[in-house]
């Protein structure tokens, strides 16, 4: 309260109707370590025990019944809980850091020393819907602003010709919860994520959806401009009219800027290969990763990449479904890290990898087979890279089954507070007045910034 810092919109909104909400760059609360974020969202819940957090005890108990109270497991009916299920892939340590990676993630493993592994994430709900709301907005319910919205509300944008918060979704379809994964909630809509469509015109209505020659369009633009100028001149001192004209100007600038930013043909073949762009499986995710780099390079503050529905959600055939998800993402993710590092962008770009929860140590019944794992909200692994995090470090520990966190738990609020901190924002100060309540991303009960993750 008494601390003195200069910041405009993010803090001074005493329900002032004249408050202008825009994307102009804002001052931070303290010196930032990162300027941009690329979030690689692994919807469905990657399996921590199979991929990153090996458990010899669990492996030894493979096939045996769960030794504790089965009610502590998963979210399905207890009758569907199978037996202990050991890690599904060969797994070993990599690099100086000694981070563990299953052999289905060979490329990510090669970047081990750049990653900061958080093994002690936990969340509050075992359902996808709610856990997704939680990981994105800090709340279990829909309608709250997401991390990306809070970030652009607090920091604005460095590029006036592109949206500040861009979502790159899968050409195959939207993720679970759809557009609510990037909603601005009660924040003004200017802070919501803009989805760049994977095919055709990248933003809805960015290009004409009807036939009209360029000449006629230019003529129409001239006419609109003339009429609006007359309208405005007859109405002096109406700032909304200026804002409106600006929004039309930005719209036309955006048509050019977005097309340029999204044109992957401007990148070399070698770069394409690095991201796995080509005829093979990683192509689609690789394109989105490369796009993310191009956007961050151009000053887009927050880029979020999603997969369709929830490919990591492996209730059935875990060994093959998680392998398939790895195949889609592993090479592109490593390519992105390598590319960011090469260009120096990694220093100012925070890369986040993770899903909404983890998976259970026990198998789960589906029909008559037990080949998958259920959701586990009590522990999961996420990693961070670049943007001021401690490269090659590990944080937090889980129990012998990878089921509970036993050391240094990181709640979703802690995770968010730490990310905000890296961006130079303080989670308590980043607030918005709504219906007499001071709303924050990290809620009422204060979280903790995990300084051990920060370089």
């Amino acid at each position, binding site marked *: *309260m008494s601390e003195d810092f200069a910041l405009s919109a993010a803090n001074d909104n005493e329900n002032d109707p*004249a408050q202008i909400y825009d994307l102009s760059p804002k001052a931070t609360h303290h010196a930032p370590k990162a300027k941009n974020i690329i979030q690689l969202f692994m919807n*469905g819940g990657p399996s921590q025990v199979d991929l990153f957090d090996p458990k010899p005890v669990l492996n030894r108990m493979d096939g045996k019944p769960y030794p504790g109270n089965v*009610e502590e497991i998963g*979210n399905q009916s*207890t009758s569907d809980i199978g037996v202990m299920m050991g890690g599904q892939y060969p797994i070993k340590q990599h690099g100086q850091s000694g981070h563990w990676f299953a052999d289905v993630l060979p490329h990510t493993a090669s970047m081990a020393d750049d990653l900061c592994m958080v093994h002690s994430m936990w969340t509050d709900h075992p*359902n996808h*819907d*709610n856990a997704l709301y939680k990981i994105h907005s800090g709340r279990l*319910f829909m*309608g*709250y602003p997401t991390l990306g919205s809070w970030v652009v509300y607090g920091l604005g944008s460095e590029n006036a010709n592109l949206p500040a918060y861009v979502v790159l979704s899968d050409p*195959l379809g939207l993720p*679970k919860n*759809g557009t609510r994964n990037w909603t601005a909630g*009660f924040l*003004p*809509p*200017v802070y919501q994520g803009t*989805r760049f469509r994977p*095919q055709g015109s990248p*933003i*809805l*209505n960015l*290009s*004409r959806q009807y036939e*009209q020659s360029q*000449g*006629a369009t230019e*003529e*129409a633009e001239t*006419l*609109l401009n*003339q*009429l*609006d100028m*007359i*309208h*405005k001149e007859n*109405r*002096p*001192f*109406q700032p*909304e009219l200026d804002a*409106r004209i600006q*929004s*039309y100007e930005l*719209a036309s600038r955006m048509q050019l800027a977005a097309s340029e930013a999204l044109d992957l043909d401007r990148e070399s073949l070698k770069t394409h290969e690095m991201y796995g762009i080509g005829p093979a499986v990683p192509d689609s995710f690789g394109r989105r990763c490369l796009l993310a780099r191009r956007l961050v390079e151009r000053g887009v503050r927050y880029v979020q990449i999603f997969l*369709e529905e*929830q*490919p990591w*959600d492996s209730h*059935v055939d875990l060994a*093959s*479904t998680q392998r398939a998800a790895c195949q889609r993402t592993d090479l592109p993710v490593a390519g992105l890290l390598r590319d960011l590092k090469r260009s120096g962008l990694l220093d100012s770009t925070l890369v986040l990898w993770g899903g909404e929860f983890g998976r259970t140590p026990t198998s789960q019944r*589906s029909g008559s087979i037990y080949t998958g794992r259920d959701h586990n909200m009590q522990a999961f692994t996420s990693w961070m890279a670049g943007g001021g995090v401690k490269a090659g470090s590990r944080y937090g520990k889980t129990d012998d089954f990878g089921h509970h966190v036993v050391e240094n738990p990181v709640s979703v609020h802690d995770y968010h507070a730490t990310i905000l901190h890296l961006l130079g924002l303080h989670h*308590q100060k980043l607030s918005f007045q709504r*219906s*007499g*309540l001071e709303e924050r991303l990290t809620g009422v009960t204060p979280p903790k910034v995990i300084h051990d993750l920060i370089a």
Partner: protein
Amino acid sequence: MPDEGIYRVTSRLGLFIWPSLQMRRRFAVHFSWAIALTTALVAHPNPLQAMADEDKTTEGGTLSTEVERVPRRSGETGTTIEIEDAAFSIPTAIQNKCGGCHNESTQKGELNLLQSDGILRGGESGEPLLHEDLEQSRLWQVIQHDEMPPPSEIDLTGLEKEQIKTWILQNHKTLNPATKATLPSSIHDVLPTLLLRCASCHGAQRQDGGLDIRTYDSIMSGGDSGLAVQVGDSASSLMIQRIEQEQCPPRELLLKFFVRRPSETEVHLLRDWIDAGAPIGEVRADVATREADPLVTQEDRQHWAFQTPQWPITGQSVDDFVQATLQKNQLELSPNADRDTLIRRAFFDLIGLPPSVDQWKQWRESTAPNWYELMIDELLASPRYGERWGRYWLDLAGYADSEGGISADPLRPVAWKYRDYVIRAFNRDLPYDEFLIEQIAGDELTDHAMIPELTADQVDQLIATGFLRMGIDETGSRTMNFVPERLKVISDAITIVSSGLMGLTMECARCHSHKYDPIPQRDYYRLKAIFQGAFDEHNWKSFKQRKLSIGTNEQRVAIQETNPPLQKRKKAVQAEHKRMQDALVVAILRAAFPDQSEKDRNGTLAALGIADNQRTLPQRMLVEKLQTAQNLPEIQEATEILSIQKKISRLEDQMESIDRSMVPSLTIRALWDAGHPSPTYILRRGEHTQASRWVGPGVPSVLTDGKTPFYFENPFPNGSKKTGRRLAFAKWLTNKNHPTTARTFVNRVWNHHFGKGLVSTVENFGTMGSKPTHPELLDWLALKFMSDGWSIKALHRTIMTSNTYKQSSEVSPLLKRLDPENQYYSRMPMRRLDAEALRDSILFISGRLDLKAGGIPDPVSVGPEGEVNVKPLPNQKWRRSIYAQYRRTEIPTLLDTFDYPQMGPNCFERTVSTVSPQALLLLNNQQIRELSKSLAAEIEKETTIAVTDPATHPATQELTDDWNEKIELTYQKVMSRLPTPNEQEIGRESLTALSKQWNGDEQKAFETYCHVLINSASFLYID
């Protein structure tokens, strides 16, 4: 009552310390009396008040005792062992920075920080301030995170914080509140746990094994297996045995009934209570009495909004008050706007549509001296009025056609009946007080269960209660129906009622006493108790259970006559639809992968029938393959596929038209009192496991004189059992002395007319809200509104016939300088069309608006890009936006882009954004272009009629004259005015140039022109 077992350890500071748990059990049997008293004293500064009047018929059996017993003083029982005075003094930092509010006499939040027993007792919520673990210490938490002192006071310095921290660490042992724990002394210490963990099977809806845990008597009488409780012997009590062996709650029912096992602490509590002799206790519900609430003072009531409005003596019209302020600031009202502007302004304001060209001509040419008043009357009488103003109310209520909360976002098939009720109420000018009473307590107006034949009005009263059921509700989910989720639904309803109807923000008091407004936590929970009869988290109505089948006789007959054959037809169409959808999948796969095996194609169909996360990898691959194929342009354009798609959409149209020809079912969504509310408890920090004091129904003390108990009774003494709490609340809310009800509403109406409220924080009139810019005007409007019989239409007349409203919106340099924010109303503000007005008027001017009102909402479709469009009717028109389906996850893109709100749970005030996606949509969207085309065609049609009349239009007329005529008509339609000569000239030039660009196609050129006008500021803004 024997006393020998009681060990009371009291320090000279008045600190109670109880022996360890094991010791307590030994002596437990004889404890009840003394402990009851101690608890009462600890929990409430005035135990007499805690035992205030409570309705005996509704609080259930033995829970409320008939005779008021005065508790004995705590010193009278028990052996007192003096211990050394804990050597602590209150740190100076606390004395200096906290003592101003939390001292012996002020006790803000019922907290006295200047005495050690005050610190130990904690505040109103009964939560101790200290804890062994520093991080868990409430005192430290609020200090560490700067929650206290409040922003209005001086902050603690770092040094002071350190001082307090050290002090807590040094003293927590002596002051460890764990040693202060009291033994359960009344049924109300354990009932919250029993309700939470056991009521699903042994409560209102089921009494498995013949056991009902809702009242003391029913607990003690046990079930089919015998007594549940062996008084004084927890170990042999069936209740404890079942719980500890995890037979109860049964494992297989945990998820089915949304219960969790009791925690260890809770089991201990139950054991302690049984061992202590299962005391019923002497506690009575905490309600308002004739004695003032210490947390709400007369001084608190001095805040302007908490005072009853008074007739001001300084004026008798809107203009009087506005002019007075203007004069004080060397200003005067701007001149009236011109007639065209007034016509357009009034039309949009009252009906949300522009005038037709004929209407515009009628009013602009009217010679009646009172033409303006006549126009207002005509607009108020239009059925379009309810569609405009009903929409504002639906924002407040948070109306949606879906439940929200979960991805599936299930539809609320009959929510539209509430929407139609609201529109009807506005159209018939239902007095606002009745409007509120019906929505809050319509079920307590008519004993619907006892009346064989209901009138249409009585049906409406029940539909009206849908108001309280509009919020987001995820409790229909398979996994989201636990008590916390139910409490969230209740809390949303309370927010809507308190902020929306009373202008009072109560949400904070759910977790703690309000920091800024005089709203103690108990006031929040007393308000919650008002709704407990209908919204009972321990007797929760499933989605199915909250529907009633209710209607008039005529409706019944109509349904029987019309619907059965239609239903049969629909089934046939549905079956065909399913077949065609499968055929489409197969056709896509065949076209994209001619080599794919028959087995794999069938496998894909089978996989589509399985939830995505239950598919095996091969099944996933098949579906993915299909999705890839669907994205291929050559597939999307293949003739066979297009023809199947056409068939599918025809079948969908058929199903829809069948739906539309059916008489709506009798099902309504309502809220009604079940007559047996479970007790309401204050929840510490709002947490459902932290029940503390039992409260009865009541209203926020600050809105009363503080000396009047809340009175309620069953409205149907000879009929159905109802608590009558909501009816009493609604009547209290609409009594003419209520400080905020009328003010809040007239302020909302003013806000819609002027773009901002007299109080700019429309949902918060509290101390943190804005002050009224024109307090006397606000009071005058509120009182006039009530004396006009709460007539909303009269209120519009009062406001709209004022010169203040009729002012021009022009901003002169003088006005800019003296009234830059227009806070004195020195002019009318210019405003952008809101989402619905924009969409409806584009449809209207292009001849594509169907004015059919009411009924089931118009479905939407989600395009491949995620864009959401309302489906057109078979006549290729659309109805007004209020009739579009509002599924929370599928808001029509056009409306969404122009600031249609997320209802989370509702919207008190919409934001107005100006962002480029709006420009992109109006410029590039296919549908807007199509409507521009329709607009052009309409104008073409109308001018051609004139052109073919040889008398007025010789065939030799020059082209430019044609353009002139079209331009003129376009302006009349789109802007409700004539073009200026300049605009006319620019239009002509542009049309000539556009024709050239379109290779001489004048029709195309004119379409482009119309499209530009729809994009122009003249259309989008109202002067």
